[in-house]
């Protein structure tokens, strides 16, 4: 060990230049990054801070993560095996947590392995019935869940796997463990769109309030299967973190061929902006939210203004006591200037949404 030297004397100029290049290195793949930096998988990742890392499309065989912090680490199409060292690593809420916990449980309870083997040897229809019985909410316990999850890994049939996910959703009681199972599916079965879709739906339904889960959903936005992409988009749109990931999903929303998804996107954005924006985004034809791909005409905005003004007026009348004597029809008459003023406000609101949120509304005069 050299003595009493400055930090700048320890780190070589070459290392600093490599660091500088890496800051601009656009490749996000974990394996490619490790190679770029010349890191040794067998040694350099021990005791590393790898919290929330994305291991997508990486073969982690031979990586030594001894003592590393891998909490929240996820990924799509991740390969890892017995040569991946996880001794003393923190793996909660990560793609490794399921397999680690499973190995421990099965070592403690060998009878569970026998139960899995019996279901594995059965015809697939019997395997599904066996899982349904195992996961019966009246008698399900932690061991049954482990058997079902392991069977998911052992059986290749899509129908068996989909059914296991289906039966499992209402009976899981440990969210971290359940998420770990789902992350394991993404890591190992990303080439099977139907399985991925089922897992994405489960993740959206149960964990859309978890930023880690939202990041996983976002990693499927450029998937080759359109249904997988739309399922991921739908999950993000239902998340309370929607506004935080809005910029990331915008280009996928624009490219989406699903008008309902686009309308949901507009709805979420408008609700975030406030009541005036919600009103401005009304589609008078569908009575729902507008699709940003449809041209915003002055005729539509006038119609929207009439709808909302009339509704407001009606509510005012309904609140009045005693009831007014004039007929309802006369009472609800609107002045043209009032309508036009409101329509102009809505036009401003939509333009503001286009400028601030980059929602590509198309206007008549564009």
């Amino acid at each position, binding site marked *: 060990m050299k*003595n009493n030297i400055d930090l*700048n004397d320890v780190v070589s100029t070459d290392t600093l230049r490599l660091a500088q290049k890496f800051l601009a290195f656009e490749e*996000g793949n974990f394996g490619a990054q490790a190679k770029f*930096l010349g890191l040794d998988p067998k040694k350099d990742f021990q005791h590393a801070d790898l919290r929330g890392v994305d291991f997508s499309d990486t073969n982690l065989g031979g990586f030594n993560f001894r003592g590393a912090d891998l909490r929240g680490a996820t990924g799509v199409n991740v390969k890892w095996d017995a040569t991946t060292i996880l001794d003393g690593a923190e793996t909660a809420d990560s793609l490794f947590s399921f397999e680690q916990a499973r190995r421990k449980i099965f070592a403690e309870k060998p009878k569970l392995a026998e139960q899995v083997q019996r279901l594995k040897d059965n015809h697939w229809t019997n395997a599904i019935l066996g899982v349904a019985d195992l996961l019966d909410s009246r008698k399900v316990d932690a061991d049954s869940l482990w058997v079902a999850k392991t069977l998911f890994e052992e059986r290749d049939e899509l129908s068996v796997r989909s059914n296991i996910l289906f039966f499992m959703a209402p009976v899981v009681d440990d969210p971290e463990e359940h998420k770990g199972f789902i992350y394991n599916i993404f890591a190992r079965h990303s080439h099977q769109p139907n399985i991925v879709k089922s897992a994405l739906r489960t993740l959206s339904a149960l964990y859309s309030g978890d930023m880690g889960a939202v990041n996983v959903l976002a990693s499927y936005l450029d998937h080759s299967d359109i249904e997988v992409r739309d399922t991921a988009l739908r999950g993000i749109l239902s998340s309370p973190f929607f506004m935080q990931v809005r910029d990331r999903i915008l280009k996928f929303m624009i490219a989406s061929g699903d008008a309902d998804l686009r309308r949901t996107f507009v709805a979420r954005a408008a609700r975030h902006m406030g009541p005036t924006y919600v009103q401005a985004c009304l589609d008078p034809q569908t009575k729902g939210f507008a699709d940003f791909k449809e041209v915003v005409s002055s005729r539509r905005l006038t119609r929207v203004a009439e709808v909302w003004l009339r509704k407001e007026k009606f509510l005012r009348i309904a609140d009045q006591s005693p009831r007014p004597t004039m007929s309802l029809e006369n009472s609800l008459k609107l002045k043209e200037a009032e309508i036009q003023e409101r329509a102009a406000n809505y036009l401003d609101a939509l333009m503001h949404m286009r400028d601030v949120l980059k929602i590509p509304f198309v206007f008549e005069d564009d």
Partner: protein
Amino acid sequence: MTHDHNAIVDLVELLLRVAKAENDAAETEVRVDLRLAAADLDGDNGLSFNVAVQKMWISLDLSGLTISPGARHGEPTKPNQVDVERTTKTENVVEKQAHAGLNLRLDPKAFVGDGSIEGGAKHNSAGKRTVSETASEKSPHIRVKARGGNRWEIAEADGELLDGTYLSNDLLCRVVATAGANSQIVELCAYAKQKDIVLKATRNGTRIPFLTNNHEKMLKILIAKAISASGSSYAGTIAFSKSEGEIEK
């Protein structure tokens, strides 16, 4: 006689002193100075990395010596007696049974009107008692905490970065010679795991955001490995400082 080897003195300084205890000639006092601070690593074009440590360990390796019982600095001894707080909560639940045999359970707090229940329904009030116990214990945070294996863990209470003098000629422990030992040597090492290194990248004083979370984590590994200066023998820990002292018989 002691020798201190501080690799990066602007980050970590560890100084060791060993001397015979004044009140017991058989014992030797091991006294230590430990100073920690963040340090800057400057690259080209205004790029700079601020390196700091969040948690550090010091480990003591003894040859021909053993630690005297009850003489360690920062022993996190748990009090034998703990206050247990017991709270009892009683809830009244009103049950309403409809004629059709359908049981409805109603929350009494929902009855804000006249409190009446529809005629024909029979109702009764049942008490439900919930007992909960909470063990309460307040303990001060120990910055330099004795751990097993002749090690001490240095950390701030809320995960803040280490900055300041944590030991100032403090008595780390007292040691006594083991029977028949030829030499008596104390070795002290200060090290950190790479996950406990905190790295901030700036350019001309402005924080640079990393492209992705992966970029941040990978860069941290690269810099930690470079700081450790252990090359191919790097195993994820960085030894900042090593001190050794020989006790003259």
